[in-house]
């Protein structure tokens, strides 16, 4: 039990360095790196801890992980607009107290019960990040609770691993700001492939803006809905470069189609419903964009799987709740005899609980962030984090 790591001997099975909790540990996580403000409380309990609702599937020997609360409030902008850092930060400032109170109330704990407070250190938008960090510091000082700074991407991965119990998958992390294919190796989440320009979520969001889709509940979701009505696959550039992808070209190309003579915008759709033979509808463009961009993502994931010889895929990040992407990934994985793990929107989309989960893992390894180092950073590579809690 005290053995730290099996890395010294190649033939030994690696043993997790994570010490078992001696009592129930509670962590509150605050996430606000983009337009979602999320707060969640998670508990890690020893196997024999008398818990009213145990983690369910957990084996008796494993630590019981329970999500006590997971509250989120999203800053939604009008159609055709993105979210600006200062406005997003204002939204977070307005809502953060209410969201925290709600999370604590739902969890049925008191602030003083918390063992640590985790917050997103980066990557993300600077000003919204600062709101989360500021609140975390304040709570920490008020209640004398240690702080843990968490890498947003690692939060996604750790929550995904926990929820799906996939222990060592290839991770496809797709969101508004990130598009990465990640595999774990030697205490780092190593990036095998990523976008060379814009993130896939960014690509979808921006296209939603071009064709005037609403941002409620999210532009990506609305694209997914409209794509279901698409029939025609227009040709778009297919930019895989090894295990990397390029998405800027595809965005530009699909935007160009909206200036095509054959294009019919929403209000023109009904006009030639019957006689129309050669038209391109917004539905077709959503469909083509999804089909092409997701095919690229699935392909680079498959490349990474083949490259490292892994079987399972975990999809995390906001775009990860797109069912078409999950379906395509599922087909690919089944062809390779593997499995796909994806989570629903409560864990896929940015949330506080994932920050709490990753934060509590570091906390159990004895890692806390001293107050002076609780600054946030807009750029924080996934592979910059030392994943001490894995063998």
């Amino acid at each position, binding site marked *: *039990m005290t*053995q730290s790591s099996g890395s010294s001997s*190649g*033939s*030994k*099975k*690696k*043993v*997790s360095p*994570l010490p*078992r909790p001696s009592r129930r540990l509670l962590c509150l996580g605050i996430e606000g790196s*983009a337009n979602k403000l999320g707060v969640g409380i998670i508990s890690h309990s020893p196997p024999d801890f008398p818990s009213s609702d145990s983690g369910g599937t957990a084996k008796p*020997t*494993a*630590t019981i992980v329970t999500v006590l609360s997971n509250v989120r409030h999203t800053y939604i902008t009008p159609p055709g607009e993105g979210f600006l850092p200062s406005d997003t930060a204002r939204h977070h400032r307005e809502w953060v107290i209410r969201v925290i109170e709600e999370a604590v109330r739902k969890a049925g704990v008191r602030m003083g019960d918390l063992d640590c407070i985790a917050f997103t250190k980066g*990557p*993300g938008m600077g000003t919204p990040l600062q709101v989360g960090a500021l609140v975390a510091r304040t709570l920490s000082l008020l209640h004398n609770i240690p702080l843990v700074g968490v890498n947003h991407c690692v939060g*996604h991965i750790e929550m995904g*691993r926990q929820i799906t119990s996939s*222990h*060592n998958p*290839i991770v496809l992390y797709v969101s508004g*700001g*990130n*598009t990465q294919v990640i*595999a*774990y*190796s030697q205490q780092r989440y*190593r990036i*095998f492939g*990523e*976008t*060379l320009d*814009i993130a896939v979520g960014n690509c979808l969001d921006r296209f939603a803006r071009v064709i005037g889709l609403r941002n409620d509940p999210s532009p990506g979701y609305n694209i997914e809905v409209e794509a279901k009505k698409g029939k025609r*696959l227009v040709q778009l550039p*297919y930019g*895989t*470069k*090894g*295990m*990397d992808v390029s998405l800027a070209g595809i965005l530009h190309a699909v935007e160009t189609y909206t200036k095509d003579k054959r294009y019919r915008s929403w209000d023109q759709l009904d006009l030639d419903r019957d006689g129309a033979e050669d038209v391109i509808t917004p539905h077709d463009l959503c469909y083509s964009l999804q*089909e092409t961009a997701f*095919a690229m993502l*699935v*392909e680079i994931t*498959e490349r990474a*799987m*083949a*490259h*490292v*010889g892994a079987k399972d895929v975990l999809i995390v990040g906001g775009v990860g709740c797109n069912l078409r992407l999950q379906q*395509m*990934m599922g*087909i*690919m994985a089944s062809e*390779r005899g593997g499995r796909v793990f994806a989570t629903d929107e409560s864990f896929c989309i940015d949330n506080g609980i994932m920050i709490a989960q990753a934060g509590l893992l570091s906390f159990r390894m004895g890692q806390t962030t001293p107050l002076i180092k609780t600054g946030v950073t807009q*750029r924080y*590579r*996934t592979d910059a984090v030392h994943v001490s809690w*894995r063998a």
Partner: protein
Amino acid sequence: MSTAALDPNDAGPSSSVYQTISRGLIEQGTLIKQGAEAKVYSLASLLPKPAVYYPPSSSSSSVSSSSTTATTANSTDAGVILKYRFPKKYRHPTLDSTLTASRLTFEARALARASKAGVVVPKVIWVDEKGGVLGLERVEGWSVREVLGGGAEGEVEIEDDEAEEELPVDVDVSEGKRRSVGEDNEGMKALRELGVTQEHLMRSIGTALARLHITTIIHGDLTTSNMMVRLTPGETEPFEIVMIDFGLSSTAQFPEHYAVDLYVLERAFASTHPQSEGLYAGVLEAYAKGLGEKRWKPIETKLKDVRRRGRKRDMTG
């Protein structure tokens, strides 16, 4: 006309004839690996078993040949690899068939061009772009990743921390499960016996890459898995680097393209061989030397750009 179809010089057999043959070849082959985009089969020789393609009803001359070729085959064939790009069901069928055909054609063309320009690549033996089958010379040797003991593969394959927590017992739970990484792989051992160091290997990779890029061919998927080390007994150099898998190759127009190609390899090194990241500098050095100052300078500038761009992307989430 089944006899005509076997003649590669024949001008116009319909694609279906090709596909029938391709299918026959695949059936004879043994599946050795399912790569990212293709299933790879190994075959002793390309010449198909005549019984399949020379029906007894055909002319008497071919019947007589069928009885002999069955065993003799083609003795110069060292072995054939068949790359079958099977239809990807996750992709839209139109998108998929366009991609498959264009990649296969490009791969065959790039291989032919590279080989003409003196780059060591496998010979192209069979092309059936509609059926998605490409026949290549089999390269005997090891991939560079095997030689370097590709760290990441071993890591990912083991089933570590089964239940995320350690079990109370910490004895050797499994001996065989973990593939030993590094030190004692066959390829490195063979190279070391010939007095080849890792640095030497890196230099050869750089030189081979330079030779490829001089032909304006961009590989598009440079990883350590896509370079083979083949021993060349009797030559001045004890081994050669054989570039394989040109499925994503293209022709370069700007220094940017070369730079991206290099960057892809750089990343592959960093992620697959974290312990030998420093070695990559040796690759670049030999590459620069192989290209010559004049060609290298613009690529070097671009490479710095590309590196920065890749990193910049880690911003919002």
